[in-house]
């Protein structure tokens, strides 16, 4: 058994909110096991990634709502060639682009956990898996959202 508790090795760049704080509610949400997506308080459109304005109605009045962590694989890739030292000799891994049917089919990037050699199919249903990095009181801790086949 590998001692690794995360899908990819530690040592990759750590995600932090921008200095302007645009995406801070997302990262606070994942720490609590919630998948939060931006939603316009005016026209109710979902939006991802976060932006300062609603692309549909041009309102600046945007909020965040927690969505159901169920999605569908829209596209995928299996990465073999490492471009970061932390992934050297890590073997292949799978990245998926997942649509969220409960949020206007916005798409998110994540890893598909499980066997990295598994068959992957666009259209397959997946569920969110929260992956903690660092202990809950670690100021540099963060939580990623992966997916596993439903």
């Amino acid at each position: 058994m590998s001692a690794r508790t995360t899908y990819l090795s530690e040592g990759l760049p750590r995600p932090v909110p921008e200095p302007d704080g645009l995406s801070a509610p997302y990262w606070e949400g994942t720490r609590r096991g919630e998948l939060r997506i931006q939603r316009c308080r005016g026209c109710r459109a979902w939006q991802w990634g976060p932006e300062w304005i609603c692309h549909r109605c041009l309102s600046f009045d945007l909020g965040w709502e927690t969505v159901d962590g169920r999605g569908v694989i829209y596209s995928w890739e299996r990465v073999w060639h490492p471009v970061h030292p932390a992934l050297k000799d890590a073997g292949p891994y799978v990245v998926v682009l997942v649509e969220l049917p409960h949020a206007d089919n916005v798409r998110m990037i994540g890893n598909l956990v499980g066997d990295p050699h598994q068959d992957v199919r666009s259209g397959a249903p997946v569920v969110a898996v929260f992956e903690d990095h660092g202990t809950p009181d670690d100021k540099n801790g963060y939580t990623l959202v992966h997916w596993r086949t439903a």
Partner: protein
Amino acid sequence: MSARTLRGRVAVAGIGETTYYKHGKSPDAELKLALQAILRACEDAGISPREIDGFASYSNDRNDPSRLAAALGTRELRFSNMQWGGGGGGGAAAVGNAAAAIATGMADCVIVFRALAQGQFARFGLGGQTPTVSGEQAFTFPYGMMSPGQRYAMRAMRFMHEHGIGREPLRAIAMASYHHAQQNPRAVMHGRPLTEEMYDASRWIVEPFRLFDCCLENDGAAALLLVPAERARDLRHRGVYMLGVAQGSEHRNAAPVHNAPLYGTSSFTSVAPHLYEMAGVAPADVDVVQSYENFTGGVLMSLVEHGLFRAEEAAEVCTLENLLAPKGRLPLNTSGGNLAECYMHGLELQLEAVRQLRGESPNQVPDAEVAMVCAGPMVTPVSSLILGTEGVL
């Protein structure tokens, strides 16, 4: 006031390039490479470098036009232009921007150039070399999606899924570039042919791309010299004229974290119709195509989106036989392109289009009169242009 078009108004007077080197192998500084390519384009045109009054480039080229103008002792600088965003997708746009400056009287003698000495600076194909990431990168880098190949494999995979396309057309595109490079002494891969067996046995980089589906990284520089069309008739080479150029991308193409509404495209679906409208030609009129290979999947998408064949015809049309000069139905990347001539960020493709229309290509398409160049598939903005001989004006 005549129609708002560049068609027939601007000509390519000269082209030039340095020796093309493997990544990190240039003995010369990047700025020196740029100067060498510019001087060769001037020499090719028979025009004094002092006459250059404008510079256009793309992808944040590090070699500033004011410094180049001072170094070259040009009489004055009238046009200093950088195409914003899109990396190699700016290649045709930079030529278009230079042409627009000439057509509108802002400048008379404009250099379009690109210089890369990646050994002296950072490489493109590495990712995530900082301890933290924010913004869009925070939503991709921690999942191991960092490099251009990793970013664009996702789009190509969707395109192939939507249209039921296998990997054979990608192999044909890679092999066409390598085949053409064997006749081109400038090519980095000259003397290094690629067989089907070698392609099939090559390692995966990121599915659906194998090693030979991915562009090289190289050192060197290339340049084109543009002048008003009237002047082209007095120059030493057969006139090569701008017929049309277009840049941009579809509605919300850059929607963050892979949320472009039209995701399974190379970004050209809205651009290509503008290109053909200005050029006044149809896809069937195009004699030879240079299409930017960051990855072969993007080339396939570019060809489809420029109307050269339908996605559903890819297996039948996008075959090695059809892609080869001189006899193929759709001669593609006849210098070897980014895969096998040199990754000069696609500017070498513009030079090759000019050579085809002059009749000077190492893989000449007989009587080529209309040449198309597509720059930087899957990025935004992308750009493409069509050049023609005097006969099609």
